[in-house]
């Protein structure tokens, strides 16, 4: 059952990723990326991390991707234009990606699978995650929220020069 769900999600994720790479239409690409994000959320559910899965859908597919679609819709009203690609990029891109793939494969090949053991029964629930965030990871969590606030202030300053 779990195997079946995994393969359905895997096919969905890979297919939508391929659509993102091959299609020229930006809105189709954005939509395919959104469905890719949702199928990855499905993997989180399979792993029992439901909170992360929901956040993946709400934040990435729901909020960020909608904003991207929003922008693309406004930009994509005219004729489709594509910049000429540099000659160097044309040759370098496949070679570099091939090297990256070889390195990745080598690393994966050498890695021993970690013995993680059985997760506790309440693994991945909101309560457990919240408790961990506010006890063990309290300081990193607060630092990240400061960083986010700084980013927000920066965005407001850039958008509105005069305050």
């Amino acid at each position, binding site marked *: 059952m779990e195997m079946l769900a995994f393969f359905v999600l895997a096919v969905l994720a890979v297919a939508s990723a391929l659509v993102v790479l091959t299609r020229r239409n930006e809105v189709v690409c954005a939509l395919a990326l959104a469905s890719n994000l949702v199928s990855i959320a499905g993997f989180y559910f399979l792993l029992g991390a439901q909170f992360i899965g929901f956040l993946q859908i709400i934040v990435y*597919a729901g909020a960020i991707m909608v904003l991207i679609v929003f922008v693309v819709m406004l930009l994509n009203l005219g004729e489709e234009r594509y910049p000429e690609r540099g000659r160097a990029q044309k040759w370098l891109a496949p070679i570099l990606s091939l090297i990256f793939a070889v390195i990745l494969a080598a690393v994966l090949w050498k890695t021993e699978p970690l013995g993680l053991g059985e997760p506790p029964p309440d693994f991945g629930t909101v309560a457990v995650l919240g408790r961990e965030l506010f006890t063990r990871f309290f300081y990193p969590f607060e630092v990240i929220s400061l960083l986010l606030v700084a980013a927000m202030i920066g965005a407001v300053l850039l958008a509105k020069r005069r305050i």
Partner: protein
Amino acid sequence: MSDFTFLIVSTLVKMGVAVGALMGSVAIMTWVERRLSAVIQFRWGPNRVGPFGLFQPVADGVKFIMKEDIIPASAHKPLFVLAPAVALTTSLTAFSVIPFGPVIELFGKKIPLVVVNMDGGILLAFAATALGVYGIVLGGWSSRNKFSLMGGLRSSAQMVSYELSMGLSIMGVILVSGTLRPFTIVEQQAGWFWNWNAFLGGWQFLGFILFVIAIFAETNRLPFDLPEAEQELVAGYHTEYSSMKFSMFFMAEYAAMTTASAMVVTLFLGGWQIGVPVPFEGWLLWILQIGAFVAKVGFFLFLFVWVRWTLPRFRYDQLMNIGWKGLLPLTLLNVMVTALLVAFGVVGR
């Protein structure tokens, strides 16, 4: 029957009941909307098909199926076809976490009357709502019509803005109840009606009002129906849609209304709790509790129609001001006050 088969069968039955009830409410609401608007405006409304025009939804359904299905030549066909399906699917999905009745006993097994009884169910509803924007945006874009595009743009801006207030206004309830499982939240509100979260149970009256305002915007209903403002945009994002595809957008709007009403009832007004202690139990109590849920949801559906035919539409800048400068600070205030109350042990379950 083994436990696993029983789980599968009972879940399938519950899914059938939930989708059936939701679609039934859509059919009834199309009739209620027109009859009630007629009452409000001193007209008759549809009264030709059946007694009081009650079979009008059936006639409409037949009409929608028989109509020619037109796809504009310049439309982006795959997305044009996909958009209504996305809209309808997402608004049906959100209902799956709503508990529509208590735990009943059937064949010696306990069944909670909710399709998905999971920890974090509220998040599922919000995830479905968040994805619901895509249906409208894609419909607006793929039609390649400037009215549709404007409608789609307006609705995405509106829904993204009000989703924030919607999510934050229920934070109070979550703080008080300490869980994200809708069924537990309803069970906590047992007893007299002042135990409901909107009243003395959670002190969430402000959150309740803010959430109701936010769902009006989230379902694109008047006074927030700018995505389909007829005078300006013909029909907004579904201008180019005809036949069953239009009908699916229509059903999605009404299903979203029902789901949103059910969310209000579940989180703030005790869900299937009757609100007064009753002296009996068993089947009679269960049926009464399901009836209480239906009645409460019905009241909010009535409110949706009542407001639509009473209030005029906001201007677009007013809409954004209300969302960002009115609702959002108030929801944040509500979260802060509730957090303080919970920290000092005034409220909490």
